[in-house]
C-alpha cells in the first residue's frame, strides 16, 4: 500500500486515496473542507480551503509540487510528503481564502440559523483573521422560499456546489443550479420553479453554511438548546435512520445522521425529515454522540467544572 507522510505522521493508505482522506485516517490536523463531500461524486476542489503543500511528490519524483494543491482532489502517490499546518505558506494561503470567503458571507452567527453547526464559523475561528480588510459594499439578497420546506438565503451562500451535486445525484429532474458568473454567481431555480421532490431536504444537510435552511425548524430554537437523539422508523424510500432534535418531548427537527466531518451517513427522504415529527413516529435509540468541543454539546454532556482552591486557603 502507498505510504504518505502528512505533517510528519506516516500512514499506509489504499491506492487512490486523496490527501484529505489520508489525513482523515490519521485524524490529526485534518485540512478543512467546505465543498468536498465524500458522499457526492465530483465534489471538491472549489473552495480551496483544503490547500496543502506537497514537498515530495513520490518516491520516483522527490521534487515537490510547484503550487499548493487542493488536498480533497489530489491523490496520494507512494512516498508523498505533505505539509498541512506545518507549512507557513499553507497557513497563510488558507487565511487568505477564508478572508475571501467572508467577503460575501456575513459572520452574523448570532442571527443565523446555522450557528453552532456552521463549517465556515469553525473555519473562520480556526484559520481566519480577527478583522477584515474589505471595506466595500457586500452583496445582499432577499430570502427565497424554494418550495414548502426550504428557504434560500443567498447572502450566506459560499457557492460550494454541494446542493447542486446533491440534487443532481439524488433526485430526478433537478430544477436548481448556478446562474451568472464570478462574484455575481448565485444559486437559483428555473424560472418560477420550486425544489420539490422526495429527497430535496438533503440539500439542507449538505449546505456547510446557513444558505439553505429548514423552513419547519428555522429559528424555532438554537441547536444548543435541543437534544439530539438517534432514531429510526420503517421507511419505504430511505433507510429511515435519522437524528431527532428534541426540545423537551417535542421533536423540533429531523436530520440525517452526520459523521465527525459533518457529512451525513445516509441521505434521508422528505417524509422522514419533514412529515414525521411526533415522537411516536419513531423508535428512539438513544443519545447522539456529540463532540465535546461542539457548541451543541453545551448543557448536554455531564462535565464538572474545575475546583478552584484560592491561595488564601492554603495560607491558612
Amino acid at each position, binding site marked *: 500500500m502507498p505510504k504518505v507522510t502528512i505533517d510528519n505522521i506516516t500512514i499506509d493508505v489504499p491506492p487512490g486515496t486523496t490527501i484529505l482522506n489520508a489525513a482523515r485516517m490519521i485524524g490529526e490536523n485534518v485540512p478543512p473542507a467546505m465543498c468536498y463531500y465524500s458522499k457526492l461524486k465530483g465534489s*471538491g476542489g472549489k473552495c480551496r480551503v483544503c490547500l496543502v503543500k506537497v514537498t515530495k511528490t513520490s518516491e520516483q519524483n522527490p521534487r515537490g509540487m510547484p503550487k499548493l494543491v487542493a488536498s480533497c482532489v489530489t491523490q496520494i502517490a507512494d512516498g508523498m510528503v505533505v505539509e498541512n499546518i506545518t507549512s507557513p505558506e499553507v497557513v497563510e494561503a488558507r487565511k487568505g481564502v477564508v478572508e475571501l470567503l467572508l467577503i460575501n458571507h456575513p459572520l452574523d452567527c448570532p442571527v443565523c440559523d446555522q450557528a453552532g453547526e456552521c463549517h465556515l464559523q469553525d473555519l473562520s475561528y480556526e484559520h481566519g483573521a480577527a478583522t477584515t480588510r474589505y471595506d466595500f459594499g457586500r452583496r445582499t439578497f432577499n430570502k427565497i422560499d424554494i418550495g414548502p420546506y426550504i428557504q434560500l438565503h443567498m447572502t450566506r451562500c459560499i*457557492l460550494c456546489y454541494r446542493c447542486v451535486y446533491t440534487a443532481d445525484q439524488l433526485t430526478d429532474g433537478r430544477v436548481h443550479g448556478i446562474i451568472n458568473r464570478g*462574484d455575481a454567481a448565485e444559486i437559483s431555480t428555473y424560472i418560477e420553479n420550486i425544489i420539490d421532490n422526495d429527497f430535496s431536504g438533503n440539500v439542507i444537510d449538505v449546505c456547510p453554511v446557513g444558505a439553505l435552511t429548514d423552513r419547519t425548524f428555522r429559528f424555532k430554537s438554537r441547536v444548543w438548546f435541543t437534544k439530539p437523539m438517534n432514531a429510526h422508523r420503517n421507511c419505504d424510500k430511505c433507510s429511515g435512520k435519522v437524528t431527532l432534535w428534541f426540545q423537551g418531548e417535542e421533536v423540533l427537527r429531523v436530520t440525517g445522521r452526520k459523521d465527525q466531518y459533518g457529512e451525513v451517513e445516509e441521505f434521508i427522504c422528505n417524509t422522514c425529515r419533514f412529515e414525521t415529527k411526533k415522537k411516536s413516529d419513531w423508535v428512539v435509540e438513544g443519545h447522539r454522540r456529540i463532540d465535546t468541543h461542539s457548541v451543541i454539546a453545551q448543557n448536554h454532556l455531564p462535565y464538572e467544572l474545575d475546583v478552584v482552591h484560592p491561595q488564601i486557603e492554603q495560607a491558612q
Partner: protein
Amino acid sequence: MSRLKILTEHIDKPEITGIEGYIKHGGYRAVEKALKKMQPDEVTEEVKKSGLRGRGGAGFPTGMKWSFIFKGNDKPRYLLCNADESEPGTFKDRLLMEKIPHLLIEGMIASSFALGVKTAYIYIRGEYMYILHILQKAIDEAYAKGYLGENILGTTYSLDLHVHPGGGAYICGEETALIESLEGKRGNPRIKPPFPAVEGLWGCPTIVNNVETICKVPFIINEGGETYANIGIGASTGTKLISACGNINKPGVYEIELGVPVEEFIYSDEYCGGIKGGKQLKALVPGGSSVPILPNRLITKTAKGEPRLMSYESLSDGGFPTGSMLGSGGFIVFDEDQCIVRNTWNFSRFYHHESCGQCSPCREGTGWMEKILHRMEYGHGRMEDIDLLWDVQRKIEGNTICPFGDASAWPVAAAIRHFRDEFEWHVLHPAEATRRNYGMGRSAEPIEQVTA
C-alpha cells in the same frame, strides 16, 4: 527586407479564401502527403522534431502533447481547435480564420490523422460569428472536394469536422472549460488530473490546440520538422503571429521569426513603425493582457543587459520578476502619456467580469482588486491600498483551479512592482488623477462606496 512567412505568405491574395485559390497556391499538399505517404506516428514525429510550441499562450511542446494522447482503450479520440480568442490585445487567430480558413482545415485534417481522430471540432468564440460562416463555407467546400468525410482522397481515413460557437466567455478558452462548454455545460474549468489527453471530451482522450498551432502543421509536413526547427532561436522555433496594438504607428498582425529583437519589432518600419507621435516608450505588455507588464528599462534589454528578443525564453527572463511572457502574442505598447493605474484597473475589470466563479479566491479576489483599483483611479485611494492590492493578488495567484487566477493577478503584481510611484501619485494627487481625460470621457460607473 522580406522575411520568411509560413502562415501569411499568401494571405493578401483575395482568392485564397476559396478552396480553388488555396489549392492553386499549394494548399492541401500536406493532407495528400500525410494520408498517402506517411503513418500517423510519423506525422507526430515530424511535429516533435519541429519543436513547435503551443501558440495559445502556454507554449507547451505540441508534439509532446500529442504523444500523451491515451491509446489504451477503444474510446474515440477527439481533436479540438481552440479558436476562442478572447484575451484583450490578442487578435491573431481571427486573421487566419477570416483570410485563409482552408489552412486551418488542412491542419485539422493532418493533425487528426496523426492522432487517430475521427471527429474534430473547431470551438470558436461567440463574437466571431461572421468567421463561423466563413469556416462553415470552407468546411463545406472541403467535404465537396473529398478532403473531409468518408475515405478521404480514396484512403481508409475518414474525418468529420464541425465548427461550434461558444457563448463568448473568456474562460472557455481554458482547455477544460472549453470541453465542458462543448459538452453543453456551463464553461467551468475541470480539475486536472485527469488531463484531457486521457479523459477529455465526453470522457474520451482529447487534444486541444490553438488555431495558429494547427495552422503550422501543414508546413511541418510539407517541409519537414527539421526545416521548421531551423527557423527561430533556441527552443523558440519557427514563426509566431504577433497582434500589435497600442500607441504604435502601425498596429496589426505580423508574422515574425522568433528571435527578432523587441526593439526592432517596435521601431522598424517593417513591423510596428515606432511610437505614435514620436513619443517615449513607457511600458509593454508583450503577450496579451494576462502577462506581466514591462517598464521601459526592461523592454529592449533583459535584466542581464542582453538584447530582449521576441522568444519564449528571452521575454520570460528565466521566470524572474524582471521578465514577462510571450504568451499569446498580444503585443500592447504604452507611450509616456498612458496611465498604468488606469490600464491595470481596465484589465482587472475584465478579469472580474470574466471569472467563472467556481473557486473562491478567483471569484471573490478579482472583484476586490477591481474595486481597489477603481477607487485609486477615481481619487479615493489610500496609501495602504497599494499593499492591500499586492496582498490580494498574492492570495489569488497559484491558489485557483485554473490559470485564470494567475492571469488576473500577474498584471496587478507587475504594475505595482514596476510602477509603484504611479500608484502613490494617484493617492497623493487625487484631484489631478480624477480630472484627467483620456478622450473617452469619464466612466459612467459609480465610484465604489468606501465604508471604513
